[in-house]
């Protein structure tokens, strides 16, 4: 770990301004991912801005009938919130499928969105990784890639985004609210928050330098049957091989988003139009441009089968 300076932010705007005004600064909230990465010198911030003291730990109802989740709401609290459990069941279920109780107690809403990949080559600084060291190559391609992306990947990177929460939020059309260093705010649909790796897998979101997530807004409840199914070798405390977030309406329409298959939560709205034609049609659209390795080819049939199971259960 490199030495770093540290400050406690006094307001979101001040935090954003400080981050933009200090070279190589990072925000720290729960720290469950960042601190590990700093110990391995995968992340080497010169300055940490602790945002834990900001009053961003509330869940409030919005004028539109939705919920605004403060960036610092802990995963445990979010999963347990009565309104979330009642109206956004997919989110509560996804949160509880993630990590462990201890980690969920620390992990924050914004931090969860911004956690980095769990690709083992990203974590070993002796090996090539374009995400860790741009231009060094991708050791996962041609290497151990059982966990890796089957769609939306590139020649530079086949890493996945590890979050469960984000997959559910993608299905819920969540909107990310931020404050920028100049004090201005903006709203980013979650579909646009995460980038595909392309030629620059080190750039993972559309957030600008210093831009701070302050909240995640959920639109008013959409009802339906909500499910989150996480498939993994180990029954708990493991990242998804494939996960499916689904919201199915009585009329058979619905939304599906997948985790464990791409560099971001994977949802294609056009695929959902195929729901009445059956799972195969949906999967064909979701994975039209899929490209798998020998190790992870199983994810394509697994995703389709998991999707089928979730939809079948949602309809019964």
């Amino acid at each position, binding site marked *: *770990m*490199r*030495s770093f300076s540290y400050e406690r932010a006094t307001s979101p705007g001040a935090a954003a301004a400080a981050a933009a005004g200090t070279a190589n600064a990072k925000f720290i909230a729960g720290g469950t991912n960042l601190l590990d990465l700093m*110990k*391995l*010198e995968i992340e080497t911030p010169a300055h940490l801005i602790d945002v834990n003291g900001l009053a961003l730990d509330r869940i409030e109802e919005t004028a539109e009938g939705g919920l605004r989740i403060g960036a610092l709401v802990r995963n445990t609290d979010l999963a347990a919130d009565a309104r979330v459990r009642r109206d956004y069941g997919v989110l509560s279920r996804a949160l509880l499928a993630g990590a462990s109780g201890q980690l969920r107690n620390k992990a924050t809403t914004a931090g969860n969105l911004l956690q980095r990949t*769990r690709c*083992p*080559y990203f*974590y*070993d600084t*002796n*090996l090539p990784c374009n995400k860790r060291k741009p231009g060094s190559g991708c*050791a996962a391609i*041609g*290497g*151990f890639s*059982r966990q890796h992306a089957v769609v939306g990947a590139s020649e530079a990177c086949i890493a996945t985004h590890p979050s469960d929460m984000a997959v559910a939020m993608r299905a819920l059309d969540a909107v990310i609210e931020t404050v920028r260093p100049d004090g201005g705010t903006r709203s980013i649909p979650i579909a646009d928050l995460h980038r595909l790796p392309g030629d620059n897998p080190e750039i993972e979101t559309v957030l600008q330098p210093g831009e701070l997530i302050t909240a995640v807004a959920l639109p008013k409840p959409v009802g339906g049957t909500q499910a989150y199914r996480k*498939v*993994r*070798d*180990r*029954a*708990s*405390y*493991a*990242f998804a*091989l*494939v996960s499916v977030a689904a919201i199915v309406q009585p009329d058979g329409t619905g939304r599906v988003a997948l985790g464990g298959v791409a560099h971001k939560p994977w949802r294609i709205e056009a695929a959902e139009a195929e729901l009445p034609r059956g799972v195969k049609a949906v999967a064909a659209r979701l994975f039209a441009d899929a490209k798998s390795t020998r190790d992870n080819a*199983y994810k394509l*049939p*697994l995703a389709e*089968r*998991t999707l*089928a*199971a979730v939809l*079948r259960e949602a309809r019964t």
Partner: protein
Amino acid sequence: MRFEHPATFNPIDQLKVIGHPTNRIEGPLKTTGTAPYAYERHDVVANQAYGYVVGSAIGKGRIGSIDLEAAKAAPGVLAIVTADNAGKLGKGERNAAPLLGGPEIAHYHQAVAVVVAGTFEQARAAAQLIRIDYAKGDGKFDLAAERDNASTPDPKIGGPADTAVGDFAAVFAAAPVQLDATYTTPDQCHAMMEPHASTAAWDGDKLTVWTSNQMIAWGAEDMAKTLGIPKENVRLVSPYIGGGFGGKLFLRADVLLAALGARAAGRPVKVALQRPLMFNNTTHRPATIQRIRIGAERDGRITAIGHESWSGNLSEGEPDMAVSQTRLLYAGANRMTATRLAALDLPEGNAMRAPGEASGMMALEIAIDELADRLGIDPVALRITNDTQVDPEHPERHFSQRQLVQCLSDGAARFGWDRRNPKPGQLRDGRWLLGMGVAAAFRNNLLTKSAARVRLDQLGTVTVETDMTDIGTGSYTIIAQTAAEMMGVPLEKVAVRLGDSDFPVSCGSGGQWGGNNSTAGVYAACTKLRETIAQKLGFNSEQAVFADGTVSSGNRSVPLAHAAGDGDLVAEDAIEYGDLAKTYQQSTFGAHFVEVGVDADTAEIRVRRMLAVCAAGRILNPKAARSQVIGAMTMGVGAALMEDLVVDKRHGLFVNHDLAGYEVPVHADIPHQDMVFLDETDPISSPMKAKGVAELGICGVAAAVANAVHNATGVRVREYPITLDKLLDTLEID
């Protein structure tokens, strides 16, 4: 004490203390966090500095140059030790590669430097400033590719590379029912909770290391050899060990680097291997490729059985003896085994819980299930049909005890085996396909010399000292129980001091030999102390009865403590074994039953119920023994379903080198475990009439899981771990 004849009635048979499910006596220290573990020995020596280990970034090759300048100048750095400045180092008898590498690199994450600084954080930060230029060499990392280049080894333990009885080839070829299948097991990591950790301090030319090691005498001997100093100048202390599973049998880099760091820094140094180093820096259970051929009559009798195994290792490493159990477990007049060893440049393969049998049973017990399928015979019945009460290679040698049939029958009844449908894929519970599987459990009972010293003081306290270790197994407790039984005192009057090379040399903890041999050594020392006490108090030692804190004979009774009235009485002895292990085959047996559910959609496999029935001699402490067995069953589930050190064959390393990537079972994976010990005493084994049990518990578990998966789905997976991707293709979708 030489143990040359079967044990007769002795004080242990009173079973006043032995055989009771006593709570572990050191438990309160552990649950209150006050048991001193190696990295927390702040109490033993002042002014400790911290070492951080740098592992090789390549799997094979040479260091061209090392630039230490920036690291040396970093805050708090006291010393940096590399092969360049460490002085001449030897290599321990039991290490396949030097523990400090350079310029030659033998394997990935082989230690190449230790940075010593005033704080851990300073040492870590400085370590990351070291710049090393490597010349990458060509290494061999692919066991399957090297299979045909494998050579015939001369194994140090576990029997010869080739065995043959009768005419295997001809009888197999002519057998009416044949099985010929190949199985693979992956490299596995001990992944114990406490990493290898040591605190080292020099006093002149004498070195003390507070460490975490299963085999104190081996460690001290190899440390002296590595440093080139007299053995008497090395003291290892290891009273508490946070798990080992074979990973701490040997001297490892933490001990050496703490000592070298302390010498260079001129002050005590502590070193814990960082978690990511645990997988490539240390030893692991090597992967195997196993071919099993069995020929049988239509009634199920095996007429020919052959088992061949290939594993890989560094050039000075040993093969995995995966064929061991096949020489003894089932009858059959025509037999062969073959062990081959490929030269690989991966980290050293070595012992992990039940080395040999654990891998071998993973394959053999699937093969038996497959044979049962072909024969249309129940797999429990098939195993019973092929039971043998003698060593099949040497029919004149009987097993000292062999209750395999009873384990299988008793287990089948308890588990509800009769509810299993032999046709796969027939039973469902909602989305779950249900299946049951069985496997035999087998592990040899190993006998090895073990010494102890026992002291009686004037308070009537009995203190046992031996370099035996407690790796979480319950050694403290069963040793205390043994001394209490022998000396006729309550457990509270016994103090047990373990894990110090100043104490008499024990068997140590490994090979499931620790429980039986270490307590037998304490038995020997206590027998001697009883004689000394009897003599001191004027009793005939043959007739004196030690009970309730007194020594008595006839009408006369004297408090035990009086014997030490004018000074402590001390006795030291060792148990040593004669030829009984040659005359008799000593093994432990069991049967594992497993029920799994396989998700019909995703092919996720979840264990639902497990049962083990074990027959392993006298159970000295049923609570501790049960913990060992259910822990081993858990590890067996890991081996079956998830544990897999994945080799990157291009870079030459185990890629998933942390606990996020190397999955072991969590609580949610282990819903219900049951285990039963059959009544057994084995007077051939030792005066304790006990045998090993801690490794028996893992042998066969993975195969029972695999067989249950087959019963649930009809899919036969022969490559461990059995993960959902291996089932999906053949598992029909609803």
